[in-house]
Structure formats: structure tokens, C-alpha cells
């Protein structure tokens, strides 16, 4: 699999117009910064995806010469009104596969491709943090084969994209009850977090073996330990102390401004309960593998229209 930021972006797009082939043949349109010169070919990419990559590569070779140009936001998006932290519940991968008579694993792989796309867009549009609900505490109850496939998918994804995270200045944080993960994956996560901890352009927080209840409980556990050791009194415990112990302490912006849930379900499903206190919720009908740029733009435009009063 590959992760590429090399694609042409037309200067003006509406919420619903897909990127047309004709745009990509017009090299004078604004492009994002060329960051890599080599795109490793994925054994799993679709014919269309491969064609697009090769097409982009050709265009860059003929017109780009390594020049860096400024990013452009799609029409309607105001940079000052963008959410700093977007959270996503990536729902619908299995349904996507079932609808196509494909094995469930194909759905998850399609989901990973979709995630890569959204990460690219976040980097491009200046969103600072993206949190994704990759694997819930409840998901451990799924069939063993499925769980094992997911664990290997996480491992593979992290290994293959390490170079990209380093090159693109992306920080990776993984939150959740990681002790339940296979040891090899735990080690990979520790190494990746360490290697990317100083990256400041964008942060991807992946919630694995996570639930909002678990997050609050582990914060309580830490505070109980501090109280036991006499470092704090129980009466000292306040919102600030709890925030400092929640798993989202790994980021400068722990509270999502916008939560997107795909596949038409209207629930939060035990994701980041404390942190979502004032988040705007956006429910998309499409399944996660189909959630692309147009849908993401729709969510951001809807967010911009919302009036956030915080109870005042």
C-alpha cells in the first residue's frame, strides 16, 4: 500500500464536484507541495488508483520541476473557521465489503485507503489534529479471525507508512488499552511514537482498544494512585487534573471541535466521552470507505455554519 500526497487539486471545487480527469492534465493549477519523488507501487491498489498515481507522476515530471506552491482551500472553507481537531468514527467498512460481496478484510483495507486520503486533506487544509476510532474496547468481542486481521492491518499500515510520517512531519499517537495488543504491535507503536514525537505539522491520534469509559477510568486510576501516595487529596481533584490524566494529554488540542461519524449511525459509541463535551457532531450517510473529499468538505462547511455558544 502507498501513501501519497501527490495529486493535483483544482483551484476551485464545490462540495459535490468530484475531481475530474481534465483538471489533472492542467499543470498550471495550484498544487500541493511536492514532497516525494517516488511512489512505491502497492500490490493491493486498484486499477484506477494506479492509473491516477502514474498520471500524477507524469505531470510532475513534465511540469513541476520540484517547485513548491502554496496550498489552496476549497471554495467556501475559511481558514480561520476550520476546526483544529477533528475526530472520526470510521464506521461502515464491513457493510461496504458485504454490499460488494467481498470479504470483510477488503472493507477494512478500503477503510485504510480512505483514512490516508483524509489525512492528506487535513495536512493540506491546515487541520492540526485528527483522531480516529480504529478499534473499540467492544471490538475485542468480534470473531478472532477478524480481530487478528485488524491487528495485522494496523501493523502493516504503520510499518509501510513510517517513512511518510517522518517525511511529512506527521506525529503519530496511539491511545487505548495497548496492553491488550500483540507485543510486536505494541513495540512498533512505541517506536513510531518516539520517532515522530517532535513532528509538528499534523498529529494523527489512532484510538485502538479504546473507549471513552476506559479513558476516564484510567484517569481515575492514576488519580487514585496519587491520592494513595499522598501526592493529592481527593478533594483536590478537579476538571483540570482529570484532563491531564486522560489519554488525549498527548496533544496540544485534546478536545475535538468536530466529530464525524459515517454510515448513518447516530451515536457516539463510547468514543472520547469527556473530550466531546462541546464538539459539533456531524453524521454522514456514506460508509467510511466511500467517505472522500466531497463528504469531508461538506462536514467542514456544515461545521463553519454552526454557532458554538458553550452554554452561554
Amino acid at each position, binding site marked *: 500500500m502507498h501513501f501519497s500526497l501527490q495529486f493535483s487539486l483544482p483551484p476551485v471545487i464545490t462540495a459535490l464536484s468530484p475531481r475530474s480527469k481534465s483538471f489533472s492534465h492542467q499543470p498550471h493549477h495550484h498544487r500541493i507541495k511536492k514532497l516525494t519523488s517516488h511512489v512505491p507501487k502497492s500490490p493491493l491498489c486498484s486499477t484506477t488508483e494506479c492509473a491516477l498515481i502514474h498520471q500524477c507522476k507524469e505531470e510532475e515530471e513534465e511540469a513541476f520541476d520540484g517547485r513548491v506552491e502554496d496550498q489552496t482551500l476549497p471554495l467556501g472553507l475559511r481558514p480561520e473557521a476550520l476546526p483544529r481537531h477533528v475526530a472520526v468514527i470510521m464506521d461502515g467498512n464491513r457493510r461496504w465489503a458485504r454490499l460488494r460481496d467481498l470479504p470483510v478484510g477488503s472493507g477494512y483495507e478500503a477503510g485504510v485507503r480512505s483514512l490516508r486520503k483524509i489525512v492528506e486533506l487535513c495536512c493540506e487544509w491546515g487541520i492540526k489534529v485528527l483522531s480516529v476510532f480504529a478499534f473499540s474496547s467492544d471490538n475485542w468481542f468480534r470473531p478472532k479471525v477478524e480481530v487478528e486481521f485488524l491487528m495485522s492491518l494496523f501493523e502493516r499500515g504503520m510499518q509501510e507508512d513510517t517513512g511518510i510520517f517522518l517525511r511529512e512531519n506527521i506525529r503519530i499517537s496511539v491511545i487505548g488499552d495497548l496492553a491488550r495488543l500483540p507485543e510486536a504491535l505494541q513495540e512498533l507503536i512505541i517506536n513510531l511514537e518516539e520517532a515522530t514525537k517532535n513532528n509538528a505539522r499534523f498529529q494523527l491520534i489512532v484510538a485502538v482498544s479504546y473507549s471513552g469509559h476506559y479513558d476516564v477510568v484510567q484517569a*481515575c486510576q492514576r488519580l487514585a494512585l496519587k491520592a*494513595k501516595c499522598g501526592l493529592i487529596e481527593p478533594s483536590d481533584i478537579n476538571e483540570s487534573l482529570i484532563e491531564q490524566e486522560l489519554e488525549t494529554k498527548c496533544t496540544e488540542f485534546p478536545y475535538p471541535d468536530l466529530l464525524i461519524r459515517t454510515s448513518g449511525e447516530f451515536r457516539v459509541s463510547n468514543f472520547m466521552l469527556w473530550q466531546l463535551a462541546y464538539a459539533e*457532531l456531524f453524521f454522514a450517510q456514506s460508509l467510511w470507505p466511500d467517505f472522500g473529499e466531497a463528504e469531508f468538505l461538506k462536514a467542514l462547511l456544515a461545521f463553519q455554519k454552526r454557532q458554538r455558544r458553550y452554554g452561554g
Partner: protein
Amino acid sequence: MNNFSKVRSVRHTLSNLFRKGVCKVLSVGPIPTHIAFIMNGNRRYDQKLNLAKGTGHSIGLLVMLTMLMHCCDLGIRYVTVYAFSIDNFKRKPEEVERVMDLLKFTFELLSEKNSIANLYSVKFHFSGNLDLLNEPVKNAAKELMANTANNSKAFFTFCIAYTSTDEMVSAIREACDERRRAMQEQKKTGGNYGLTKPVEVVDIEKHMYMATAPYPDIVVRTAGENRLSNFLLWQTACSQLYSTPTLWPEVNFWHLVLAVLNFQRNHSYLDKQKKLL
């Protein structure tokens, strides 16, 4: 009784019968055990109809009581409303005072013998940091709780001076205090609390203000917004969220029917998902 009154009376009776019929039909499917309302849009109602400030809140409270009756008719045993957030104290003092007076009036009304509280046998409960309320409101709330303590057909919770994060802070403080006391007891009796069992969900949950009710099945938010605004964050982890553009003072029985139908439509899917888990 003149003709106009007769017609009105017949219309009223037919309307009641029709509502009862709809309730019977809905009861064929699963009925939520607990429904929570974020009663949003009272101030916008004033602006929309060019009314005096506070009218929306007054009508909103009447609507709340009406919706409580509809929920009882439908067999929904637990109802919770977000009456006043801790964040709402940031609003203008005259508005806060107006709402507090209105709430006190409502609690006193409900405390009367022939109120809907006793008619429907509703037990009232208050979730929130009641010490933030002024004495008259706090006393009226305590009296309502005491007067309805023996009712048992339905349970109504006012979330007042409430935020979910404040609730969790309070619960965590109590959980930590409880563990420390248990440790000290163990030390006295010579036991070893050193290898303490880890904190679990239940250790925190039992100290929540909302420990008296099960998790909500549905959270209804009116006035078109899609956010939880620090309401029941812990308890709504898996609740169905339902947003309607209608302002709270304009809500009626049919909005409740739609919310329940929506719940029923998703209920069978959710059941299947739980089995797949």
C-alpha cells in the same frame, strides 16, 4: 354547555383517544426505557415570535410537563431533562434569575397533591451540584424529592446546575476517597491494600448523580443543533442521538412519536450488532 364548548370537548376527547391509539400501536414495537431531552430553543422562540423575554422559557416548562405526561402514556419509565447547565450561569443575571424563579414555581406546582407528579406517580430526582443554587430553589427541589419519594411508576430527573464533566469530577473524587478510606481500614486491620484491584467503571458509576437511572436509550435535542453540550456524556456512550429543528416550546406529542419510531427502526439493527460483537 354551549355548542362551542361541546365541540371543543368532543374534539379534545377524540384527540385523546387518537393519541392513546397511537401509543397502543407504538407499543407493539420496543419502547425506550429512558429518554433524555436537551430542551433547546426557548430564547430563539421569543425572538421568532417577537415575545417578551422569558416567555419561551415559561412555555418551555409547560411543554416539558406535557411531554412528561406523553412519555408516561407511552410507557417510558425514565425521563431526564437538561433544565439548567452550570455553563448557563454565564448568561445575563436577569435571565438566570428569571429561569430560577420559573423552576422554583414549577417545583412547587409539582409538589401539590393533585399535580401530575401524583396523578402519574412520578418520582422526581435532581442531578447536579445543587449547592450552586440559591436557597429557595434548592429547598423547593428538596421538597419535591421528598413529596414524591414514594412514587414508583415513572422517574423524572431534572439536570440542574449540572454538567457531565462536573458529575464525573464529583464521582471520581468520591471513588478516590472511598478507595483511600478502604485502604486505611485495611491498614488498621493489618490487611494489605497495596495490591489494590484496579478502578473499574462501576466504581465511578455508583457515585454519579445519574446512578438512579439506566443509560438513556434516546437523547433528543431540539432547535436543530447537533452537540451534547456537556450533558450525560458518560451515560450516552451508546444512546441514539436524535436532533429535530423544532424549537423546544413548539415540541409536541408527534415529535415524541417520531423519536420513538426512529429508535424502533434502529433498535433491531443495534440488537443484531450486539449479537455480532
